[in-house]
C-alpha cells in the first residue's frame, strides 16, 4: 500500500514524491506482483461471502439461511461450510415451500440438508392458505407473490432477526441497487430510497425488535461465477439444470414444462424438447431453455455465449412489468 496516502490536510502541501510522469498518459507504479500467490476472482468472492456470513453469525441474535435446493442456495451451503466448519452452522436452514416446486429440487434440498446434518425448517404456503392469510385467486397462477406472506409469518414464528438469501445483483435491476445487509421494517418492507449507506466491508447489522435484515452474501457473484464455483467445488445440484428431454408446450413466446400444474389448453400441443433450466422456481412460471449442455463445463460454455439474461429467459413473473421484482421486494419478498 505504499504510494497510497490519504490527503488528511488536503490543500497547500505539495507532495514531492513520486513525480507524476504524464508523458504517455501514464504514471509508472506498474509493479509486477512480488508474491507467488494466485488469488482468483472466485477466491475473492468466496472470501467476501464467508466474511459476510460470519458477521451475521457473530452479530445477529437469531439468524436463518434461506435454502431452496436451487443452485444459488446450494452454493450458499458450501460457503456456510467453509465459514463455520468444523462447527455446525450457527443457524437453521429455512425453506418457504410454494408446493409448486420441481420434485427433483425438493429431493435435492432434503438430501443436502440431511447429508450436512443441519436443521431444515420447511414452512408451506399451504399452511398460510389454511390459516386464511393467503387467499389464492387463481390456483394455476404462479405463487411467488404469496411467498412473502409465509416468509414473514415464519420470521415471526421463530423470531428471526436476519435471513440470509442467495440473491445476486446481476439477476435483476432492483437487486443491483440493494445493499448486502438490507434492512426491513416490521412489515418486511424494503425502502429503496432510504437504504443505509454500506461502506468498505463494515456492515451495520443492527435492528430494533420486530425488524429484520435480509443478507445477501453472494450479491457480487454473477451467473457465470456460480457455475464456475459449482464446477470447482464439484457441487451436487438437481439434475434438471442439465439438458434432458421434457414434455413442453409453447405459450406466449415461452416454453413451459408440462406438469400436474400445467396442462395443455385446447389447441396447444405437447412436444418433447431437449431443455435445461437456468433457474428453478415455481413450476408454473419457470421456463426451461433449449440446450444440449449435459455437464457443468458445457453449461459454462453456453453461459459465456448466451445473449439472454438468466431471468429474462426463464422467469415469466418478472416479465409482467419493469418493476415486478421491486414491487415484490417492497412487500417483503427476499
Amino acid at each position: 500500500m505504499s504510494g497510497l496516502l490519504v490527503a488528511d490536510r488536503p490543500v497547500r502541501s505539495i507532495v514531492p514524491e513520486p513525480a507524476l510522469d504524464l508523458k504517455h498518459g501514464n504514471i509508472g507504479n506498474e509493479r509486477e506482483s512480488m508474491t507467488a500467490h494466485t488469488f482468483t476472482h472466485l477466491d475473492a468472492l468466496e472470501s467476501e461471502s464467508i466474511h459476510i456470513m460470519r458477521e451475521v453469525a457473530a452479530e445477529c441474535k437469531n439468524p436463518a439461511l434461506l435454502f431452496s435446493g436451487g443452485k444459488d442456495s446450494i452454493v450458499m451451503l458450501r460457503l456456510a461450510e467453509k465459514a463455520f466448519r468444523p462447527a455446525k452452522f450457527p443457524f437453521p436452514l429455512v425453506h418457504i415451500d410454494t408446493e409448486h416446486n420441481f420434485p427433483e429440487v425438493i429431493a435435492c434440498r432434503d438430501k443436502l440438508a440431511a447429508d450436512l446434518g443441519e436443521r431444515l425448517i420447511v414452512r408451506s404456503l399451504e399452511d398460510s392458505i389454511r390459516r386464511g392469510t393467503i387467499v389464492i385467486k387463481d390456483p394455476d397462477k404462479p405463487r411467488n407473490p404469496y411467498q412473502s406472506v409465509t416468509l414473514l409469518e415464519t420470521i415471526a414464528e421463530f423470531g428471526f432477526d436476519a435471513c440470509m438469501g442467495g440473491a445476486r445483483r446481476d439477476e435483476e435491476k432492483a437487486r443491483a441497487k440493494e445493499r448486502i445487509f438490507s434492512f426491513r421494517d416490521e412489515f418486511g418492507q424494503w425502502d429503496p430510497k432510504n437504504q443505509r449507506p454500506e461502506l468498505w466491508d463494515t456492515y451495520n447489522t443492527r435492528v430494533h425488535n420486530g425488524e429484520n435484515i435480509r443478507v445477501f452474501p453472494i450479491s457480487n457473484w454473477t451467473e457465470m461465477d456460480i457455475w464456475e464455483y459449482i464446477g470447482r467445488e464439484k457441487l451436487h445440484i438437481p439434475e434438471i439444470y442439465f439438458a434432458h428431454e421434457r414434455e413442453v408446450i409453447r405459450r406466449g413466446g415461452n416454453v413451459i414444462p408440462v406438469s400436474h400444474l400445467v396442462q395443455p389448453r385446447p389447441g396447444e400441443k405437447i412436444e418433447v424438447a431437449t431443455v435445461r433450466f437456468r433457474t428453478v422456481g415455481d413450476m408454473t412460471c419457470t421456463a426451461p431453455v433449449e440446450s444440449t449442455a449435459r455437464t457443468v463445463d458445457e453449461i459454462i460454455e453456453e453461459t459465456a455465449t448466451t445473449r439472454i439474461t438468466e431471468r429474462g429467459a426463464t422467469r415469466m413473473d418478472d416479465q409482467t412489468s419493469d418493476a415486478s421484482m421491486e414491487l415484490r421486494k417492497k412487500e417483503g419478498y427476499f
Partner: protein
Amino acid sequence: MSNATQLLRFITAGSVDDGKSTLIGRLLHDSKSIFEDQFSAISKTSEKRGMGAVDLSLLTDGLQAEREQGITIDVAYRYFATPKRKFIIGDTPGHEQYTRNMVTAASTANLVVILIDARKGVLVQTRRHTYLASLLGVPHVVLAVNKMDMVDYSKQRFEEIVGEYKRFAAQLNVHDVHCIPLSALNGDMVVDRGDNLDWYQGPALLELLETIAIDRDVNTDDFRFPVQWVCRPQTDEHHDFRGFAGRIEAGEVSVGDEVTVLPSGRTSKVREIVTYDGKLQTAFAPQSVTITLADEIDISRGDMLVKSSAHPPKVEKEFEAMLCWLSEAPLDKNRKYLVKHTTRTAKCLFSKLDYRVDVNTLEQHAAEKLNMNDIARVALKIQQPLVFDSYEIDRATGSFIVIDEATNNTVAAGMIA
C-alpha cells in the same frame, strides 16, 4: 477456463454531461456484456420517450422512481467480464447526493475513472472527484478525457488538460494516475483503439483495466487479523477445538509464527491454519481462515491478532479522523454514537470538530456542525481501546462507520488519520 482471472472493482465519476453513462454503455456494449433482452427493454423505453438513439444510461436505472423521473438515485453495481478479468462497476449518480454516494462506492474500489469533457477541461467537479478518490484511498486513478471528437482529436488539447490536471493532482496524494484520450460516443480508445487517436501510444481504457497491477493494493507487510467469530464445535470429534475465524485484512501468517493478541498484549504461536479445504502452511490477505493457537488464552470477537513488524498498530481510546457525514440528521456533538471498527463496536463521542473541507475548493473552514455530505477533520473518544492503523497504511483497519443508536442508521464514515 477463466479460473485464473482477477477481480477489479472500479467506479466512474463524472456527470451525465461528461458522457459517463455513454462510457459505461460503450464498455458493456463493445465488450459484449449487454444481453439481448436488456437491450430490447431499453430500446423500447427509449422509443417510448421519443429518443432517437438507444439511451444506454437506462441500463443502470434499477428503480421505478428512477425510470419515471429519469434520474439515478443510488449506487448501482454492474458486472462484466473479459477473458482477462472480472469487473464490478460501482455506478454513482452525479447530482446533489454526490459526495455520499461516491464515498460509498469508492470505499471498495481499486480504481476510479474520472471523466472530463475535452471541451471543458478540468472543472470544479474534477477536483471534487479527485479529492474524494484520494480521501478514500482509491489506489489508481484514470483520467478519461472524453469527447475528443468534439476537439478534432487534438493532441495539444489533451496535453493541456493533462498538464492542468497534473498540477492539481500534485497537491493531493494520488499517485498512480493514467490519462487516456477517448470518445465514448464513437468508441475510440474505450474497447477498440479506433482510427482517430494514432498519436496516443498508451493503452485503451479496457486494456488498462485488464492489465493494471492490483496485487499490491493490499498491505502485504503487516499481519492484521480481526477475530470475527470463535469456532467451538464441542463435538466428540473436535472436543478441544477452539479456532479464531476471521479474514486476514493485511499481511500473511504461517504456522509457527508468534502472534500478539490486541488489546490484551498476550502472545502465542500459530498452531494451525484451518480451512474447509484443508490445513494451510501460510495464509495471506484477503483470505478467510480459522486460526488455532498453541496456548489457551482468552480471545473473543473484536480482538486482533498481529505479528510484530515495523509498523505496529495503535491501541488507543482517542484518535483523529477524516469524517464524511452521511445522514440527513446533522451531527449532534452532545450525543454518544456507536463506532464499528473492524469487528469491534463501541460507544464514542466527538470531542472536537477541527475543520470542514469544501470539496470543491479544498479550502478548510471552521466547523460548527456537520450536515449530510460534509467532510471534516474530527477527534473521537471511544469507550474502549480500538486496535487500528492509519487509513493510509491500511484501509481495513483504518476505517470505521458511525451508527446512531436511536435509529440504527449508518450516519458517517471515518478514515483514521
